[in-house]
């Protein structure tokens, strides 16, 4: 899946021990959420969004430590 603001691939970050997460533009959040629900991946999205230097707002989708980051990445890569 391509980030609509950077035109780059959306990457699932797995640094640290708190579980994977991904950064997604707000206008793509609904799509990502419905895809995750469809594949029964537990997640929670931040209730707020950040805009850097006046660019479109982006937010974060968080996963618990039990979620397989590579599986989520595969789902994102398969999404168009």
């Amino acid at each position, binding site marked *: 899946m391509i980030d609509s603001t950077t035109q780059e691939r959306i990457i699932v*970050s797995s640094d640290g021990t708190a*579980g994977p997460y991904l950064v997604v533009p707000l206008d793509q959040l609904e799509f990502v959420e419905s895809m995750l629900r469809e594949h029964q991946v537990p997640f929670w999205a931040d209730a707020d969004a950040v805009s850097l230097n006046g660019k479109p707002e982006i937010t974060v989708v968080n996963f618990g430590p039990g979620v397989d980051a590579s599986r989520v990445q595969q789902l994102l890569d398969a999404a168009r």
Partner: protein
Amino acid sequence: MALRGEIEAVRDRALSHLNAAHDYYTYSKEVWRTLQLVVQRDGLKFSHRNRATNSTVNEQNFLSLAQRYIAWELTSATLQQFLSIFENFLFEVLRRWLLAYPQSLSTRQLSGKEILKLPDKAAIVDALVEKELRDVFYDRPANWF
């Protein structure tokens, strides 16, 4: 002030503290998010040293710390703060209620030594209320029933 007015004032203070705690949580989280994004998207580089513990972190260490701080530490600390505000609210409401209607404490007892230290009936009622609240809030929950 009438009891209703006092309780409303306690409520308003509690709500104000809850809002302040929520703002602190939200904007602290946003600062961490901004830092994460600036490192990931703009390539910001930095390092910090905590002179007290001598630990050093760079921007990559901060990325993993940030997610843990946001997802666990900050969230659980804020929940504890919410509980503390609510506990204080409940304590203050009960205290005012019992002071207004002390008859509900008519079976409670103070020792002669405790009573002799107090100047008047109002002070005795105060002492009974404080004793009741101490028992409610700090006793083992198993003893409530």
